[in-house]
C-alpha cells in the first residue's frame, strides 16, 4: 500500500518529515495514517502551523475488542477548503494514556473528555479531564465493547427472543426497584457525596483573583439550570460571579445522555435511521442526510437525481425551520416573551406540515434511506412547497427582519456581546453560523460539496464582528439563501426513480470506514462509521455541532454580564438532544 500512485501530497510530506513515527493505514477500506503517540503533538503542530490544517473537525475512539487495541481517530481540515487528513493513534486497552491535543486545538477539550468518559482513555496534559456526560461515580466506560449494562439482553439487534418464538420482556419488571441503574461495587448511598459538583466548584473557585484591590469583593458561584427556561432544555452553566460580572463559567451537560452511539452500534444500519432523527430533534432531515451519505460512501452507491433533489429540498426546508425558531427563541432569551418566537413558529409549522405529508411525521421524519428516499413527493405537495417558498416565506422573513433587526433593544443587547474572533472560532472547532459570524466563510456545501450543492447557485453568508448580533444576521441571511436554493430545486427537479436498487432491510456494508459531513443548521454534522462487514456498525460516532460549539461558551461569556450568558447560549443555538446524545 505504500506504493500508492496518487498519494496525497500532504501525506508524502508528512512521511518525509516524520519517517520514523508515521505509516500509512494498510487495512483495506481504511484511510489515513497511523502515528506513534509519542510524536502525535509534533505531527499535529507541523500540520497546523506548516500545512494549514487549522480545523480539528472531530476526535473519537474505536474499540478493537477482542484485540488489545484502542484507536484514537483525528479528522483534520483546512478552513480554506480541501480534503481530509485522518490520523490515528493506537494504544492498548488497559490504562491507556495518550498526549492531549487540547493545547493545540482547544476545540478538542470536550471531545477528549467524552473519550475519557466513554472509553477510559486518559489524555496527558488536558486542562480539565473529568467525565463529560456521565456522573463521576459511574462504573466503567460504556462504549467499550465488553461493557454490559444491567439486564443486558444481546450484543446486537435483532434480538433472538422476538421471533419465531416471541417473548418480549419489560426490563423494569425484572428489577425489584423498577429501574436499571448500575452502581459500582461497595457503593453506599448514605456516605456518597457526588464529586462531580465539588470538582466543578473547585475549578471555578481556583479562578478567583487573589488580589481584589482596596475593598473586599465577594465571589459567588451560581448555577443556571439544569431546569431553567433559558437553557433550551436540561443544561447547566456553573458560573463564578463578581457582582454581575462572569469570571469563569463551566457548562455541565449529560442530563439527556442515552448513549446514542452504543445504541447505534447495536442497531443494524437501517435501524439507526430513525434514531438519528432524535438527536437534533429540530432538524431531523439534516441528521438523516448526514447518516445516509456516510453509509453510502461505504456502500459506494449514489442516489438517483430525483432523490438528490428531494434530499436537498428537505434539508433546506429544515434549515429554514430551524433558523426561524432559533431567531424567535433568541428573542425569548432577551426577554421579548413569545411574540417573536410565535411568529417564527407559524412559519415553522407550515414547513412541518410539508414534512408530515412527505415523510409521515412532523419532527421524527425518518425519510432517507441508503440510495434514495422512502417515498416520492406528490404533485400537490410540490405545489404547496412552491407556494410557500415563492409567496409566503420571503414576505414573512422580511417581516421578521423589519420587526427585529433595527430594534434598539435587540441591538443594545446583542451588539458586541459574546465576541469570538476568527482565530478563536477556528481553534475552538466552532462551525455553522458561529464560525461564519466570526468572518470565516466556511460552509461545507461550498468547500466540500456533497449531493448536488455544487450545481446550485447560492452564496456563503458571513459577517465579521463575531458577536451575537452577527450570528442573528447570518441566520437571517442563510434563510434567504435557502429560499434561493429551494426555488432552483423546485424548478429543476426531474422525474424518475427515487431509489437506487431496492430498499433492503439488511444492508450488506463492506468493511471499512467513512467520515461523512453535512452542513446542518447548527454547523458541521459529521458521522464516522466503521463497518466490519457485519449487519451492525462496529463504530458509529456523531460529531455533534451543538456540543462542540458549546466548547467556546466559556470563552464567549467570561468578562461579560451574567444576563448576557443567556443571550450567548441562545445565539449558540444548542439542542440538548444533540449535545448529550
Amino acid at each position, binding site marked *: 500500500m505504500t506504493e500508492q500512485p496518487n498519494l496525497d501530497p500532504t501525506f508524502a510530506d508528512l512521511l518525509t518529515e516524520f519517517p520514523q513515527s508515521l505509516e500509512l493505514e494498510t487495512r483495506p477500506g481504511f484511510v489515513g495514517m497511523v502515528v506513534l503517540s509519542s510524536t502525535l503533538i509534533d505531527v499535529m503542530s507541523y500540520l497546523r502551523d506548516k500545512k494549514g490544517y487549522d480545523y480539528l473537525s472531530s476526535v473519537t475512539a474505536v474499540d478493537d475488542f477482542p484485540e488489545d487495541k484502542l484507536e484514537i481517530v483525528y479528522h483534520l481540515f483546512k478552513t480554506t477548503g480541501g480534503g481530509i487528513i485522518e490520523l490515528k493513534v493506537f494504544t492498548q486497552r488497559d490504562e491507556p494514556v495518550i498526549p492531549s491535543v487540547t493545547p493545540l486545538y482547544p476545540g478538542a477539550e470536550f471531545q477528549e473528555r467524552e473519550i475519557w468518559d466513554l472509553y477510559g482513555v486518559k489524555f496527558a496534559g488536558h486542562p480539565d479531564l473529568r467525565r463529560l456526560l456521565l456522573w463521576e461515580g459511574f462504573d466503567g466506560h460504556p462504549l467499550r465493547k465488553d461493557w454490559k449494562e444491567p439486564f443486558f439482553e444481546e450484543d446486537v*439487534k*435483532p*434480538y433472538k*427472543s*422476538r*421471533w*419465531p*418464538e*416471541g*417473548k*418480549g420482556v*419489560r426490563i423494569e419488571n425484572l428489577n425489584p426497584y423498577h429501574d436499571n441503574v448500575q452502581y459500582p461495587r461497595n457503593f453506599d448511598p448514605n456516605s456518597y457525596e457526588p464529586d462531580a459538583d465539588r470538582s466543578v466548584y473547585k475549578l471555578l473557585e481556583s479562578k478567583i483573583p487573589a488580589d481584589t484591590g482596596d475593598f473586599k469583593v465577594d465571589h459567588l458561584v451560581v448555577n443556571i439550570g439544569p431546569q431553567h427556561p433559558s437553557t433550551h432544555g436540561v443544561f447547566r452553566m456553573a458560573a463564578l460571579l463578581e457582582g454581575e460580572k462572569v469570571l469563569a463559567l463551566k457548562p455541565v451537560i449529560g442530563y439527556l445522555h442515552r448513549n446514542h452511539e452504543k445504541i447505534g452500534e447495536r*442497531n*443494524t444500519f*437501517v*435501524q*439507526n*435511521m*430513525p*434514531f438519528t432523527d*432524535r438527536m437534533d430533534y429540530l432538524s431531523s432531515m439534516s441528521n438523516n442526510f448526514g447518516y445516509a451519505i456516510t453509509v453510502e460512501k461505504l456502500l459506494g452507491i449514489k442516489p438517483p437525481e430525483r432523490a438528490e433533489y428531494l434530499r436537498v429540498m428537505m434539508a433546506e426546508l429544515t434549515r429554514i425551520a430551524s433558523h426561524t425558531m432559533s431567531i424567535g427563541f433568541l428573542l425569548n432569551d432577551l426577554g421579548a416573551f413569545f*411574540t417573536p418566537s410565535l*411568529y417564527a413558529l*407559524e412559519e415553522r*409549522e*407550515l414547513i412541518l*406540515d410539508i414534512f*408530515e*405529508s*412527505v*415523510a*409521515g*411525521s412532523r419532527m*421524527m421524519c*425518518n425519510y432517507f434511506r441508503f440510495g434514495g428516499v*422512502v*417515498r416520492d413527493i406528490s404533485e400537490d405537495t410540490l405545489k*404547496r412547497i412552491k*407556494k*410557500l417558498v415563492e*409567496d*409566503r416565506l420571503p414576505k414573512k422573513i422580511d*417581516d421578521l427582519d*423589519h*420587526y*427585529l*433587526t*433595527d*430594534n*434598539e*433593544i435587540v*441591538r*443594545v443587547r446583542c451588539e458586541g456581546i459574546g465576541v469570538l474572533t476568527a482565530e478563536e472560532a477556528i481553534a475552538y472547532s466552532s462551525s455553522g453560523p458561529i464560525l461564519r459570524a466570526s468572518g470565516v466563510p466556511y460552509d461545507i456545501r461550498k468547500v466540500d460539496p456533497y449531493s448536488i450543492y455544487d450545481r446550485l447557485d447560492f452564496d456563503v453568508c458571513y459577517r465579521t464582528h463575531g458577536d451575537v448580533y452577527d450570528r442573528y444576521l447570518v441566520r437571517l441571511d442563510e434563510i434567504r439563501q435557502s429560499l434561493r436554493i429551494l426555488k432552483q430545486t423546485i424548478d429543476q427537479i426531474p422525474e424518475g426513480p427515487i431509489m437506487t436498487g431496492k*430498499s433492503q*432491510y*439488511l444492508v450488506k456494508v463492506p468493511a471499512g470506514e467513512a467520515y461523512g459531513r453535512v452542513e446542518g443548521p447548527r454547523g458541521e454534522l459529521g458521522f464516522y462509521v466503521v463497518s466490519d462487514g457485519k449487519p451492525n456498525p462496529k463504530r458509529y460516532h456523531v460529531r455533534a455541532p451543538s456540543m462542540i460549539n458549546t466548547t467556546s461558551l466559556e470563552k464567549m461569556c467570561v468578562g461579560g454580564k451574567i444576563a448576557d450568558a443567556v443571550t450567548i447560549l441562545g445565539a449558540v443555538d444548542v439542542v440538548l438532544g444533540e449535545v448529550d446524545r
Partner: protein
Amino acid sequence: MNGLGLVKGLALTFKHFFSTYVADIFGGKGSKGRRGTIDADGLFTIQYPEESVVIPEEFRVIPFLVYTLGENGQRNYRCTACGICSKVCPTQCIWITRMKDPETGRPITGSQEFYIDVDKCMNCGTCAEFCPFDAIKMDHDYRIATYTRGETHIYPKHQLGKPLEYYAKIRPMNYTVEEAERAAKAQPRQ
C-alpha cells in the same frame, strides 16, 4: 437609537393583531378554514377539540394488522409471521409466535400471537415499509391516551387487527396502488 426601530416593530404586531379581525369580518365565508394554512393571515391557531387539522395520508402512529373478514365472520390476517417487521424494528417492540400445525408440530403460515409494546414503539413506520405482504400498516388514530401504563400498553393481536376497509379509508392512494400491484402479482398464477 431614536426608538424608530421599536415603533416599526410594534407596528408589525399591531398589523398582525388587526389582520385577524380583518380576515374574519371581510374575508368572507371560509376565512376561518384558512387558519393554520399557507393562506392564513392574522390568527394562526385553531381551537383543538372543536376543530382539528386535516391529517395527510402519510401520517403515521402505531402499526396495525390488516385483515379481511371471512364468510363466518372470522378474521383472515394477511400476516404470515415471516418475522421481517420484528427483525427490522429499531426498538424491538414487536414479538411474534409462529403458528404451528397442531398435528405435526411444524410451523405453518400465520402468526399464533403478535404483540406490539406501544410504549416502546416510536412510530417510525419501518415495519410497514418493509412488510412484503402489506400486512402491517401505520394507523392514523392519534388519540391513544390512557390512564395506566404497563400491561395495557402491550397490544395483543386482536387489538392490533383492523379491517382492510379501514385501511382503504385512511390511505386511499396507497391502497389503490398496492391493490393493483397485488392483482398484477396474482394474475400469472391463474
